[in-house]
């Protein structure tokens, strides 16, 4: 039930982490979910995808990886810096 609060906090962290970079758009938000973090994975995915479908993310992917442990961690973002491919 607390998955929505956690997804909101993931979005806050993602936004804050993307802010200093000259990125056009966040393409993916990668999150590690500990198996003992007390999180219902599909519920969490649903909440996070719903939030990522809205501004300022506009459809960024949620990339969830489960691993042992109790931590929930935003590992990295994929951003599109808007420049043409080199």
């Amino acid at each position, binding site marked *: 039930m607390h998955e929505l*609060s956690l997804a909101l906090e993931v979005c806050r962290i993602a936004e804050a982490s993307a802010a200093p970079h000259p990125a056009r758009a966040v393409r993916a938000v990668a999150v590690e979910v500990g198996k003992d973090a007390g999180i219902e994975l599909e519920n969490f995915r649903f909440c996070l995808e719903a939030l990522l479908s809205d501004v300022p993310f506009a459809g960024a992917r949620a990339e969830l990886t489960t691993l042992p442990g109790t931590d929930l961690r935003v590992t990295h973002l994929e951003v599109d810096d808007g420049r043409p491919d*080199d």
Partner: protein
Amino acid sequence: MAVRTIDVRERVMARNDELAALVRQRLQASGVPSFNLVSSPGSGKTSLLERTLEVLGEELGIAVMTGDVQTQNDADRLARRTERLVQAVVTGGACHLDAAQVTAALEAIDLERTRLLFIENVGNLVCPASWDLGETAKIVVLSVTEGEDKPLKYPKMFRMARYAVLNKIDLLPHLDFDLDLAVRYAREINPELRFFFTSARSGEGLDEWFQFLRAEARAPAHR
């Protein structure tokens, strides 16, 4: 287009834990112990606090904040039992209190006059276990109408708690609730749990609870 990776590596609970640490520091600096009351809805958290405020509110300078999803009912009930301001935190849908809400509520509490702080969490045996509020200890309230197996079903809450209150024992004659079994299950999850057996209705068992609170409260200021 060029896709780049930005390293983040941030624990999602990091901000809550930072705020909780600040709350803890602040309460410790004032010498005020704090108890976070957690339970499923309706186990009797507010009733226990009503009783506690009636008897000890003034003596121990008890301050209370109470979290609720949608109403201020509990804060209103508690306000009738104390002269002091009862901080109502309406979570607006969230199933738990967080350290930011406690930080804000603490602003309005005069810690100088406070020897003991209670935080009544939102009724929910799952979510509040994950949020550190900066409290001294969590106290899990389990009422005898809920079934003996709740500690096994909701182990995290019973693992995170230091104390357990088995409430509504006035109802035992009407139920087949096995008190010893409930205690055994809870101790399987957390052998350190200290128990209280209470009825907020009849008052049974409250003396021991009150004694405990007297012993835990900050010593009165010398004047």
